[in-house]
């Protein structure tokens, strides 16, 4: 059953990556990156149990933190760009 879960997570990651490459706006790309990062955490945890050792869970924890910080950072950049455009209009 762990194999089924790992294969499903890989399929979902490929779908999210394809969507990120074919998206029309920045929010779809950020959403796809967020999906990809969360699925990376799940994939590392599941692969750690599939290989029979729980040594990779620290890496999964670090990936969860990195994912959150990267999403917030990209959205801050988007809001800065928006604020710059508003100042340019006024």
């Amino acid at each position, binding site marked *: 059953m762990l194999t089924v879960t790992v294969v499903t997570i890989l*399929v979902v990651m490929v779908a*999210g990556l394809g969507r990120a490459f074919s998206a029309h706006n920045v929010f779809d790309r950020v*959403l796809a990156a*967020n999906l990809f990062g969360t699925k990376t955490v799940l994939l590392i945890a599941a692969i750690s149990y599939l290989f029979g050792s729980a040594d990779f*869970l620290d890496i999964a924890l670090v990936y969860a*933190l990195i*994912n959150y910080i990267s*999403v917030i950072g990209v959205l801050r950049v988007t809001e800065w760009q928006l604020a710059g455009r508003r100042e340019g209009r006024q």
Partner: protein
Amino acid sequence: MSTALHLISDAFLLAGSFLLLTGALGFLRFPDVFSRIHACGVTETLATSLILLALIMKSESAMPQVKLLMILLFLMFSSPTAGHALAKAAWNAGVRPRDNRNERGIPVPPDNL
């Protein structure tokens, strides 16, 4: 590990995989940004918690369980926050949801909010 716990863990893994697939399908097929955020966010929390709970049931010592609980706690905090920040940034950038006639009929708030 007892057989009942093994069965419950496998059922959780299967339900989590199904939810991941439905979330990816909604992300690929839904028509605008906000509904895609909805599809991702709703399935993400439940599928993540199901899969991590199944892994907690599969582990036998205490330290991996504590680490998995920390991952679960952090994802439960961060995933809805990221979804909210994403929807707010999209709204502030002028993206509007569609109504059921597929028109963007929702009025735009004034610029000086």
